C-alpha cells in the first residue's frame, strides 16, 4: 500500500512539475511578445515601386470589392490633356466616354483646370483596383497613379490573399501609424 502511495505521489509530482513548466513557457511567450510589442499594429501595404500592375488586386481580395484602390498623387501628375491613364491608347477624341476611357468603371473624373491642363481624380466608390490606369500612367506618363491598400476597407487578414497572389512581392507589412507607401516627388 505504501508503495502504491509513493508511485501516486511521484506521478502527481511529475504532473505538477510539467503543469508549472507549461505555464512558465506560456508566460515566457507572453513576456517576449510584450517586450517586442510596439504600440502600432502591422498592416498590409503595396510598395508602388515594386508593383507591376498585374491586376490581381482586383480579384484576389477576400472582399467582394477589393480593398485596393488607385491613388492619385497630384504633385507628380503632369495634368496631361491626353492622359495615358485615362484614355485608351487609340482614343479618337479626347472626350470622356466609355469608348475612349481605359477605366472599366469610369472611376477617373477629368476636369478642366486651365489650358492645357486637366485634373484627374479617382472616385474611390467606383474604383475596383484593376490597375489598368496604373499601367498606362507608368508606361507613358509620370506614374502619379498607383495602387494602395485602403485601410478604411482592408480587413487586415493574417495572411493577405492578394499578397499570396502578388507576382512581384510588392506586398509587405508596414506599421499602422504610417500605413501608406506613397510615391515620392522626383521632378527632373
Amino acid at each position, binding site marked *: 500500500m505504501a508503495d502504491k502511495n509513493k508511485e501516486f505521489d511521484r506521478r502527481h509530482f511529475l*504532473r505538477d512539475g*510539467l*503543469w508549472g513548466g*507549461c*505555464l512558465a513557457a*506560456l508566460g515566457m*511567450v*507572453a513576456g*517576449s*511578445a510584450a517586450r*517586442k510589442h*510596439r504600440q502600432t*499594429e*502591422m*498592416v498590409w501595404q503595396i510598395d508602388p*515601386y*515594386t508593383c*507591376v500592375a*498585374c491586376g490581381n488586386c482586383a480579384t484576389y481580395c*477576400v472582399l467582394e470589392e477589393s480593398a485596393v484602390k488607385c*491613388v*492619385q498623387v*497630384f*504633385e*507628380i501628375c*503632369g495634368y*496631361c*490633356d*491626353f492622359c495615358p491613364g485615362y484614355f485608351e491608347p487609340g482614343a479618337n477624341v479626347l472626350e470622356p466616354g466609355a469608348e475612349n476611357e481605359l477605366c472599366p468603371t469610369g472611376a477617373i473624373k477629368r476636369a478642366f*483646370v*486651365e489650358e*492645357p*491642363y486637366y*485634373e484627374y481624380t479617382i472616385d*474611390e466608390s467606383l474604383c475596383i483596383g484593376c490597375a489598368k490606369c496604373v499601367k498606362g500612367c*507608368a*508606361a*507613358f*506618363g*509620370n*506614374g502619379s497613379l498607383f495602387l494602395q491598400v485602403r*485601410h*478604411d476597407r*482592408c480587413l487586415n*487578414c*493574417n*495572411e493577405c*490573399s492578394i499578397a*499570396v497572389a502578388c*507576382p*512581384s*512581392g*510588392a506586398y509587405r507589412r508596414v506599421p499602422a501609424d504610417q*500605413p*501608406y507607401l*506613397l*510615391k515620392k516627388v*522626383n*521632378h*527632373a
Partner: protein
Amino acid sequence: MIRSDRVIISIALFLISCGVAWGVERFPPPDFESGYEMPSPTAPHARQNIYEYIDVAVLLAALTVSSYLILKKRSRRALFVLMVFSLLYFGFWRKGCVCPIGATQNIVLSVFDSEYVVPVTVAAFFLLPLVFTLFFGRSFCAAVCPLGAVQDLVLSHPVSIPGWAESGLRLLAYVYLGAAVLFAATGSAFIICRYDPFVSIFRLTGSLNILILGACLLLIGVFIGRPYCRFLCPYGVILRHLSRLSKWRVTITPDECIQCRLCEEACPFGAIKKPTTKWPQKEYHVAKKRLVFLILLLPVLIFLGGWFGSGIKAVTSRAHETVRLAERIYLEEAGEVEETTDASAAFRATGKEISELYDEASHIRSQFGLGGWIFGGFVGLVIGLKLIGLSVWRRRQDYEADRASCLACGRCFAYCPREHVRLKKAKEANGKR
C-alpha cells in the same frame, strides 16, 4: 496639342526601349496661372483597433463562461447557446480572423524574425485559450472556437469510427502543425490561414477550392463529428497536450461512476474510454518485447523523419517567393525559358545583382534544410511515441472522458443517471428555498 506630340514621342521611345520604367516622370510639373490648388492624395485612416481589444475581452468572457458551464453548471443546452454566440460573433461578425489557430504562426514568425512584431491582441488570442486549457481543459474547443462551432452544429448523424483510424488520422494534425511552424518560421507562408476551410464560409466569399474544401468538411461533419478539430487542427495538438495536465476537467458523472454503460455510445468524438480488463498473463512477454523494440525504434524513426524532411528541401523551399524567383531567373539565364514572368520582370527592373538573389535563395534553402531536419524529426518522434503509447497498458476502472481528446461539448452529461439524480436534488433544494 504640344502635349499630345510629346506623348507620341514618348510612345515611340517606349516601343524602342520596350521596358516599363516605373517611377519615371516624363512631364514637368505644370505652372498653374489660374490659382489652382493641388489637392493632396487621400489616405483614409485604418479603422479603430478598439474592436480588437473588444475581441480579446469577448474571448476572455466566453472562455470564462464556457469553463463555468462545463465544470459547474454541466449544461449542454447553455453550452449550445454559447457556441451559437461564438459562431455568430467570432465567425460571421468578426469574419473568423484573427483566430487562435492562425495566431500560432504569428508567434512563431516573431520568434524567428526579429523585424516582425506580434500585435498584443494576437498574442492574447494565442495565449488565453492555452492558459484556460491548463486550468479547465479544452473549454475553448467546447463552445468558443467558431470553427468547432460550425462543425458541431452540422453533426446530426454521428457515426463512430474505429480506434486505429482515429489514431492514424490524428497524426495529420501533427504534420500540419509542424509544416505550419516550418513555413511560418522561414517567413514563407501562413498555411493555416491559407487553407482555413471555414473562413470563406464566415466571409461568404473566397476562392472556389477553399469553399469546396469547407463544404466537403461540413458534409463529412454531418456523420463524423468535428473532422477538422480531431484530425487537422494544429492548435488542437497543443490543446490536447496541455489538457492532459489540466487542473480540473470534464467528468461524465458528477460524482461516481456506477458502471451502468449508458454513456458508452454518447460521445460522437470517440473520447469516452471504457474501463480496461485485466492484462492477459499470456501476452505479457510478447508485449514487453514489443515495447522494447518500439523504444529502440524511436530514434530510428526520428532520424528517418529528419532525413526525409531535409531531403525534400528543394520542394518545400519553393513556398518562399525568393526561392521561386531565383529558380525562375536561373531558368531564364540558362536560356531554358524564353519569356519573363511578372515577378522576374519586376526583379530585373530593380537592377539588383542576380548573384545576390542566388545567395539569398540558397540561404533560405539551407534554412529549409535545417528546418526540415527538425520538422521531420518531430513527425518521427510523434509517430514513435504514438506506437509506444498504443502498446502500453493503462489501468482504468471507470468510464472516463479522455483528457486529451475530450472536446468538452457536454453531450455525455445527460446520459449519466447520476447526473439526473444531481439535477433532481438541485431542483428540490431550489424548491424548498
